[in-house]
């Protein structure tokens, strides 16, 4: 089939400037392009050609940054490529759906949702209703994202399908792996982290992401442990390093901690895995209803135990006590101190969690699996499908609300992630 994938107007693909959506698309493309003829339409960037064939994928890059400008470019592109595509897969821009529909004839439209772009302040109600009716499927990165859409637009329910994101498990590897040892040692030496237990935060530096809570938890932790260090990687916004009020705030706090705090600023996506390999445990501190931060998969692949928050989709990939811990009330730094202490006090469990995470990443969260799920959506034309069969979401946590249930942890698999029986694709209610 001929497939057009339409990216957002914010960041370029490949993900040279980072970005979860861009990383997702870059991750699955090699596995999709062997099956179909794919064109990726995205925004231009000074370091990328406006048109190229690369890795069997055709890239077309047009001006972006501003939505209106980008939308016009997308429409213009489609008008010049009438009836050229069987499927148009739009990423995270429901507002592109209607313009794309009117410019693209009868192509099947699939929409992938990575966050809250269906919320009322992002799209007018009437338009959203038409978008829902116009698209064939709505793929979401977590049950949480799907459930929010369903609560706003119940008619979307049968079209929803969760496809969890993935990670390059050959690049993100535990620090003990032979490919990683030198990175781990180099970073730890350079930043004075030898003999330290390194807590890692990776993400944008904004109030929502809550890195300040982790820094404020340090005085409590320092009372119990004398070998800690915190590494904060990330900047105010993808690929930028502006000193915002929040960044200044956490740097000011960091300076006065009893524990060394390394703030690295923006780290190029090509180097992030080295930092994961240098760490001993990973903490996600989000205080907002986050769709599901992809750093969880990266931490898993790096074999790190995870502390995350009960916000949005984040707990969906955590089995309490098995591969990490979930902080129920992330507003209070003491809760992070408590969760981290639980890990540090039980080094054996902590180690096991890291191993479990690596197994999980390999068995459930490789890009091959994500691509296979996307292919199943592309191949399962609703005309051929009796009910909402689905798919193969390899998950081991049934729902965010019930993380305590006994769970089967799938064994690492080397083959194509395929149908795993008995799992609906979106938590308690099939969507």
């Amino acid at each position, binding site marked *: 089939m001929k497939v057009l994938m339409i990216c957002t107007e914010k960041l370029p693909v490949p993900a040279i400037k980072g970005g979860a959506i861009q990383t997702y698309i870059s991750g699955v493309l090699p596995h999709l392009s062997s099956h179909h003829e794919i064109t990726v339409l995205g925004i231009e960037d000074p370091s990328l050609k406006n048109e190229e064939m690369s890795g069997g994928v055709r890239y077309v890059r047009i001006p972006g940054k*501003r939505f209106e400008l980008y939308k016009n470019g997308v429409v213009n592109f489609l008008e010049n490529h009438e009836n050229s595509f069987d499927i148009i897969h739009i990423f995270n821009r429901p507002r592109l759906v209607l313009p794309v529909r009117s410019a693209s004839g009868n192509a099947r439209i699939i929409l992938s949702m990575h966050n809250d772009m269906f919320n009322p302040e992002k799209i007018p109600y009437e338009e959203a209703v038409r978008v829902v009716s116009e698209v064939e499927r709505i793929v979401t990165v977590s049950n949480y994202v799907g459930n929010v859409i369903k609560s706003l637009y119940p008619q979307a329910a049968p079209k929803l399908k969760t496809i969890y994101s993935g990670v390059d498990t050959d690049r993100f590897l535990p620090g003990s792996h032979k490919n990683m040892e030198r990175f781990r040692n180099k970073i730890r030496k350079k930043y004075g982290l030898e003999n330290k237990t390194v807590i890692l935060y990776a993400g944008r530096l904004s*109030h929502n992401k809550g890195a*300040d809570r982790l820094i*404020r938890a340090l005085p409590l932790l320092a009372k119990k442990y004398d070998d800690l260090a915190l590494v904060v990687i990330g900047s105010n916004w993808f690929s930028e390093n502006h*000193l915002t*009020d929040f960044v*200044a*705030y956490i740097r*000011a*706090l960091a300076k*006065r*901690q009893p524990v060394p705090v390394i703030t690295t600023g923006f780290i190029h996506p090509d180097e992030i895995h080295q930092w994961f390999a240098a760490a001993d445990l990973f903490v996600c501190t989000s205080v907002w209803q986050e769709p599901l931060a992809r750093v969880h998969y990266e931490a898993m692949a790096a074999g790190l135990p995870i502390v995350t928050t009960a916000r949005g989709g984040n707990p969906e990939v955590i089995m309490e006590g098995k591969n990490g811990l979930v902080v129920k009330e992330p507003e209070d730094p003491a809760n992070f101190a408590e969760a981290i202490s639980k890990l540090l006090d039980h080094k054996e469990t902590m180690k096991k969690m890291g191993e479990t995470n690596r197994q999980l990443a390999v068995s459930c969260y490789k890009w091959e699996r994500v691509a296979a799920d996307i292919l199943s959506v592309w191949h399962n034309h609703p005309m051929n499908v009796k009910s909402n069969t689905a798919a193969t979401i390899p998950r081991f946590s049934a729902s965010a609300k019930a993380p305590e249930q006994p769970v089967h942890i799938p064994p690492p698999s080397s083959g194509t992630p395929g149908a795993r029986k008995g799992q609906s694709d979106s938590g308690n209610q099939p969507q």
Partner: protein
Amino acid sequence: MKTLEIMPWMTEETNETTEADKLHVPEYIQFIALAVLKQYDFSVRCMDVAATKPKKGGAIWKIETSEGPKSLKLLHRRPPRSIFSLGAQEYLCQQKARVPAIVKTNTGEKCVLAGGKIWFVAEWIESLTPAPKDLDGAKKLCYGLGEFHRLSKGYRPPSNAESASRVGNWEKKYRKILLKMDWFRHIAQAYHDLPASESMLRAVEYFEKQAQKALERLQNSKYRELARYGDLHWGLAHQDYGWSNGQLGKGSVWIIDLDGVAYDLPIRDLRKFISGMMIDAGHWDPETLRELIKAYHEANPLSKELYDLLLIDLSLPDEFYKNVKDVVYDPESFLNEETAEMLEEMIRTDASKWPALEEIANDWKDVKKKK
């Protein structure tokens, strides 16, 4: 010139600047300025930097031209955002508001895009003088502000502009202040050994409650209903109005430096002007409050709902917030003796605020009658 991107020439962390620094503009930007001026029909006799925003990357020159004195401005904002403001300035001119007229380029454009930023030329109003810093001067400025708001209603930005609106953002702004109070507290705790740390903690304790109360009042007010009337109904607020951007000239008050204008409930400007003046005076005086609000009301009548909202906005400790928000950048130098004194002074001044607001709480009928 194509590849040159204009960048700020000072960082947020830079503290002290000399007088000479204030009028310094990097050479490459001066070079771009000359290229920009080539696109106008007048010839330039001399140009002097009049003001800069080095941390943001903006500048104003006064230029003497064959067509008289004019200003050349380099706007630091994103170009589509600047285009919004320029459209507003042109619209206000058409509405006969006293704002400097924009001078078109030799191809009839309002502005020039160079170095990735918007540049434009406007008339320099020679006769402008600051309003006297007394009640009479302040009343004139309030009246002028009301005119500006009234005449800005109905502005529609050009299609290539990025629309800027704060009409629906009031709760968010209140929440932000409340959130940052928490930051200030944690900074003061982490830097507890500095001269102003104690005062900061005390001030946060004192003003945080006010911010909380103000947010509750806002949520229980008619604000959301008012916001629903939309951008075109309310028109523009200047967002940086005061004794330097409102000045006396031919006719009456002229309003300059419009690059930050955004759709908003108009009383935002009025509230900032009033509270700034009270803080400067070190005392909240109910009679002055009344006079200023009346002067504004004569030019742009306030509804009961807007008046109530004005009182809520006055109850927000925004002046405190504005004065301490930079603490996050360099707590060690910020939390000094001088800041300690400033904070104590703010708390002292604040004591007179509440009886004054109480006294004018039910004034709205009177305001209307006098009109």
